[in-house]
């Protein structure tokens, strides 16, 4: 059984200006211990997808369709009480800029123990023991549990957040831009850590980022999102060596590749789509070099083009 199956997920937001279709029919799956990279630009729906899976949507957001199967059980209809139980034990989430989410007046150890005591009904002593283990796991000396967040460096704070996310041995960990605000060397350290943990603990991981370049080294498969939909899914090899969707191809080109020619890439003309009033048919058609009439009229259905490689595009070449 797969660890996670997201089928036709739709999450909409009610705003004063209308219904915002943040996630509009998104499907992907994840095996135990597998790492999926969810990539796209701002507003594409990747964070909302993560929040939907962790059931942490703000009150304006609502899942209006689809299924989220965690180990076979659909979490969408689950009542709030069950969700609260499952929240940190099945799925935990590391947010962007998470190091700023630490309470400055509480010791780091206490904040990690808090999660353990809450979910596992453990005694303070047991929780402390587990906290120290967790700190060692994320390569922080365990005697630092009694320090306050301001005594930690940026990288250490992020590692403390990871420790917190691991507190209840989740099956799936979602990282929403976990390294974006960090220096490149610390980013590398954190990514090393996440990979090691994933292997040692056989956790599933969803890594959400706008930085396509880091996904090749970190993930098994990649899903590219645009305007609330997934335009292409595939293994790292599929995406980088055999990208089919015009957006994927252009997007890859936007990241400097020091092993390639030194030319400024073409970029993508136009503006990101307005999710309150998205373009008809395929949302990418206003910016696509190959758009034809059917692209403006009909939303393309995802099509399997080999193995696990799926593309949603009307172009004949893309679908072969």
């Amino acid at each position, binding site marked *: 059984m797969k660890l996670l199956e997201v089928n036709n997920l739709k999450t909409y937001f009610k705003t004063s200006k209308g219904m915002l279709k943040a996630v509009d029919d998104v499907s992907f799956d994840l095996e135990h211990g597998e790492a999926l990279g969810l990539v796209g*630009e*701002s507003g594409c729906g990747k964070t909302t997808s993560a929040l939907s899976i962790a059931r942490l949507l703000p009150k304006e957001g609502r899942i209006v369709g689809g299924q989220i199967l965690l180990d076979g059980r659909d979490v969408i209809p689950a009542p709030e009480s069950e969700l609260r139980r499952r929240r940190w034990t099945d799925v935990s989430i590391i947010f962007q800029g998470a190091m700023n989410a630490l309470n400055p007046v509480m010791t780091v150890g206490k904040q990690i123990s808090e999660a353990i005591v809450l979910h596992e009904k453990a005694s303070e002593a047991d929780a402390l023991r587990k906290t120290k283990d967790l700190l060692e796991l994320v390569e922080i000396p365990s005697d630092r549990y009694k320090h306050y967040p301001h005594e930690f*460096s*940026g*990288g*250490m704070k992020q590692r403390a957040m990871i420790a917190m996310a691991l507190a209840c041995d989740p099956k799936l960990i979602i990282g929403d831009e976990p390294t974006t605000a960090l*220096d*490149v*060397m*610390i980013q*590398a*350290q954190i*990514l*090393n850590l996440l*990979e*090691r943990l994933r292997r040692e603990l056989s956790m599933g991981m969803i890594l959400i980022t*706008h*930085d*396509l*370049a*880091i996904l*090749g*080294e970190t993930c098994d498969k990649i899903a590219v999102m645009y305007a609330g939909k997934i335009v292409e899914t595939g293994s*790292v090899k599929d995406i*980088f*060596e055999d990208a089919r969707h015009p957006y994927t191809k*252009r*997007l*890859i080109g*936007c*990241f*400097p*590749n*020091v*092993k390639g020619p*030194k030319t*400024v*890439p*073409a*970029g*993508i003309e136009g*503006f*990101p789509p307005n999710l309150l009033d998205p373009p008809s048919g395929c949302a990418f058609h206003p910016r696509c070099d190959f758009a034809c009439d059917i692209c403006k009229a009909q939303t393309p259905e995802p099509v399997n083009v080999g193995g696990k490689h799926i593309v949603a595009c009307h172009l004949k070449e893309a679908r072969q």
Partner: protein
Amino acid sequence: MKDAREALVRVDGLKVHFEIREGFLSGLLSKEKKVVRAVDGVTFTIDRGEILSLVGESGSGKTTVGKAILQLVQPTEGAVVFEGAPVSQDREGLKAFRQNAQMVFQDPYQALNPRHYIIDIVAEPLDVAGLVKTSEEREQRVREALEQAGLTPADDYFYRYPYELSGGQRQRVVIAGALILGPRFIVADEPVSMLDASIRTGILKLMIHLRDTKGIAYLFITHDLSLAWLISDRIAIMYLGRVMEIGTADEIIKAGLHPYTQALMAIMPVPGQTREGERPVLEGETPNAAVEITGCKFSSRCPRATERCRQEQPELMEVAPGHSVACFPVQEEHRSSTEHIAGNE
């Protein structure tokens, strides 16, 4: 060595130190004042029409260097020379300097006053310097600046507010505001790091186009080494307030000699590349800039550090034309190889 008189901008032994205010008691009790050595002896030149990238992580001092050149921050020591003359400190001199050297900021969402119209934002440098007399002239100059920044039809943007524009458009407004005085030199502080990948290229292309058509030179400040490679002629790598290595973009990327440069290259993600095993990261984290370090700033984390590195601070030394490295082991190797060649002749 290049003739320093040709250079548009020359920075010589630049130091910027900030004193930290201690709390009242600790200020009384301790004798030493804590000093943050944000920039601690930086020297480089930028020619007309050249793009030099200053690459470093947070705490490297790269932004402070940019601000010090533009006199937004007072240099503690050292010289900033523009077009052959030290940047003057009096009002008239500074006013003239500011027409020639401008800054492009990092955050397009914060760099524009949300309550001002676009036309007023772009025209503000003119207004402050008292350079236009009539409103037609003002409009015309704003129109030109917006068009140069790729915002057309310019008139459509005049009476809009920043919140009505996208991130890329806002950054173009920032650039238009920097262009309106006709500068020869622009300090761009992480100008694209807050923009989506697909929008970045548009801004980068604009900057290169401006260099090609108007001969504007740039100091391009970034933490992204691969981006620096893409856009610049030369790259300077900074660490804790000092330049560790400086050379052409290709030299730094493909043949970087300083251990820090090599460390950065070793962990650089390449799109599509998978990695076997762990990334070779450096131990620990960048030390606090307030702590005084004897010897080479990088010695605490350097795999090649020697006793000499911990005692003495290396200066930049040319190991190939235009390629300088501040590292004793590298300099030793270079010296022995040239002696070896000389010995063989």
